[in-house]
C-alpha cells in the first residue's frame, strides 16, 4: 500500500513539473515551433537536436515544449465543461428523481449512443476547427459518464439519515444539494475529475492526430499526426510526443488512484 502512495506522490511532483514547463517554457524561451531549423528527419542527438527534427525540419523538442500548453489547456478546459454538464445533469437527476430523472436519463442515453470521438469529429468538421470548437466538442460528448456517477452518488446519499433529517426540518432543496449532499459526494467526484482531465487530454490528442484541430497551434497529438507518414523512417517523431502524452496522463491517473485510495482506506485493507 505504501508503494502505491509513493507512486502517487511522485506522479504529483512529475505532473506539477510538466505543468510548470508547459506554462513557463514558452515564456522563458522565445522559439517558434513552426520554424524550420535544420534538415528534415534528423535523428535525435545529432547536430545538437535533442529529439531530432521532423519531416519538415522543425525541432521536435521545441514542438513538444510548446505543444504542452495546448494539450494541457484544452484538456483542462474540456474537462471543466464535461464536469459541469455532467454534475448538473447527474445531481438534478439523482436528487429529484421522478420525471426530471426520467427526462435527464433519456437525454444521457441519447448522448451515449453516439460514438463520442465520431461526434466530436463531426462537430469540429462542420464548424471551424478552432481551439474553442475543439474544447466545446470534447466537452459536449464526454459528460455522460460523469452524469451517471453523479446521479448514483446523489441517489445514494439522498437516502441517508442526515439528508432525511435536513428535509424533515424544511431545508430548501438548493441548500440541501449544495451544503449537505455535494460535500459528501465529493470524494468519488474528485477522483472522477482527475480521470476526466486525463481522458480529455487523450481525446484532444486523438482529434489533433487526425488533423481536426487548430492548424496554427501545435499540440502533442498534432506532431504525431503530421509525421504519420514518415513514421518508419523517423520513429522519434512519433515516439517522443506520444511519450509526453503518456507520461502526463499516467501521472494524472496515478494521482487519481492515490486519491481513490486515500478516500477509501477500508477497501485497501485486503
Amino acid at each position, binding site marked *: 500500500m505504501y508503494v502505491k502512495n509513493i507512486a502517487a506522490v511522485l506522479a504529483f511532483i512529475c505532473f506539477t513539473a510538466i505543468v510548470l514547463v508547459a506554462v513557463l517554457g514558452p515564456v522563458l524561451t522565445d522559439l517558434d515551433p513552426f520554424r524550420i531549423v535544420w534538415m528534415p528527419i534528423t535523428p535525435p542527438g545529432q547536430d545538437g537536436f535533442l529529439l531530432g527534427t521532423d519531416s519538415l525540419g522543425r525541432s521536435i523538442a521545441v514542438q513538444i515544449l510548446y505543444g504542452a500548453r495546448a494539450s494541457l489547456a484544452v484538456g483542462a478546459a474540456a474537462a471543466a465543461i464535461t464536469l459541469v454538464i455532467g454534475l448538473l445533469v447527474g445531481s438534478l437527476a439523482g436528487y429529484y428523481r421522478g420525471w426530471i430523472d426520467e427526462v435527464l436519463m433519456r437525454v444521457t442515453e441519447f448522448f451515449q*449512443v453516439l460514438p463520442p470521438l465520431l461526434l466530436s469529429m463531426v462537430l469540429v468538421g462542420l464548424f471551424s476547427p478552432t481551439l474553442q470548437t475543439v474544447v466545446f466538442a470534447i466537452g459536449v460528448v464526454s459528460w455522460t459518464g460523469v452524469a451517471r456517477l453523479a446521479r448514483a452518488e446523489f441517489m445514494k446519499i439522498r437516502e441517508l439519515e442526515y439528508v432525511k433529517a435536513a428535509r424533515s426540518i424544511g431545508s430548501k432543496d438548493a441548500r440541501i444539494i449544495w451544503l449537505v449532499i455535494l460535500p459528501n459526494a465529493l470524494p468519488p467526484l474528485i477522483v472522477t475529475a482527475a480521470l476526466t482531465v486525463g481522458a480529455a487530454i487523450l481525446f484532444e490528442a486523438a482529434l489533433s492526430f487526425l488533423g*481536426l484541430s487548430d492548424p496554427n497551434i501545435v499540440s502533442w497529438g498534432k506532431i504525431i499526426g503530421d509525421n504519420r507518414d514518415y513514421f518508419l523512417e523517423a520513429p522519434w517523431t512519433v*515516439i517522443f510526443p*506520444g511519450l509526453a502524452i503518456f507520461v502526463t496522463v499516467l501521472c494524472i*491517473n496515478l494521482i487519481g488512484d492515490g486519491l481513490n485510495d486515500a478516500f477509501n482506506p477500508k477497501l485497501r485493507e485486503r
Partner: protein
Amino acid sequence: MQLLSIVVQRIGYAVALLIAVIIFNFILLSLVPGDIAETLAGEAGGGSPELMEQIRQSYGLDKPFHVQLFNYVIRVLQGDLGTSYYFNVPVTELILERVGPTLLLVTTALLIAIVLGTLLGVIAAQNPNGLFSHLVTILALVGFSAPVFWTAFMLIVLFVSILGILPLTGMVNPTTPSGTVYWYLEVAHHLILPSLSLASVYIAQYSRLARASMMDILGSDFIRTARAKGLSQRKVIYKHGLRNAVIPVITIAGLQFSYIFSGAVVIETVFNWPGLGTLALDAILRSDTPTIMGILFFSALVVIVFNLLTDMACRIADPRIRSSRNA
C-alpha cells in the same frame, strides 16, 4: 412471457432512440453554414440567383423546417441517406461497403479484450500480492494512459520493424482472390495488430475489473461451499468463480461499445484499414456532409442494436435479471 414483453419494450425504445438520432442529425445539418445550393453552384463556377433557387427547390430546401424534417426522417428510415458530394454514389452504398471491416475490427478487439482481460484479472486475483498481480496492474496503467494510436505505433515498431512478422497497413493484398482460404488468412494476419492495439485500452480496464471482482468472489460463501464439496481448486476457480467474476466485465464491455467504435476510427487511420473510420475522416476533411451524417446515423444504429443484443444476452446469462425492467 414476461421476457417477451420486455423484449418488445426494449425494441420499441430502441426505435424511438433511433428517430431521436435522425432528428438530431437533421438539426446539425441545418446549423451548418452554407447550403448545398451554394456548394454546387460554387463548384460550377458561380450561378445566378435563379439557378440557386432552382437547386434549392430540387432539394426541397424551400419548404418549411418541420416539413423538411419530416421528409428527412422518412427518407432515412427507408434507408436513403442521400448522395455523397464527393463520390456521387448513394451514401448507403458507401457505408455498406465499409461496414464489414469495421465490425470485424471492433468485435475482434472486444472479444480479445474480454477474454484476455478476464483471464489476466482472474489469475492475478488468486495471488493479489504476487509478482503477476503487480505486473498486471502496471500493464493496466500503461494501456489505460497511453493514447491508443501511440500504442499502435509502438506495437508496429515491435512487430513490424523489429520482428517483421506482421504487415503494416491495409486489410488484404488486392491481388489475392477474395473468398479463398488465402484471403481469409491474409485478413486474419492483417487483423492482429489493429485489433490488439484497439483492445489494449480495454484489456487494461477489464483486467483490473476482473481482478477486483474475482477477489470479491473468492471470499464469498458459495466458493466455500464448492470447496466443501470436494471440488478441485481449478474447478472452484474456473467453474464457480469465473462465471460470476466475468459478469461485471461483460456488463461494462457492453456499455462501452460506442467508445470502442470511436477508438476504431483512430486505429483504422493508423493502419489504413478500409472501414467506416477512414471513410468518416476523409468525408470530414472533404466536407462531404451527406456521408458524414450518414455515418453518424449508421454508427448510432449499430450501437443501439448492439446494446439491444447485449441486454438480451445479459438476461439470458444472468438468471437473476431475466424479468427485471432494468438490466
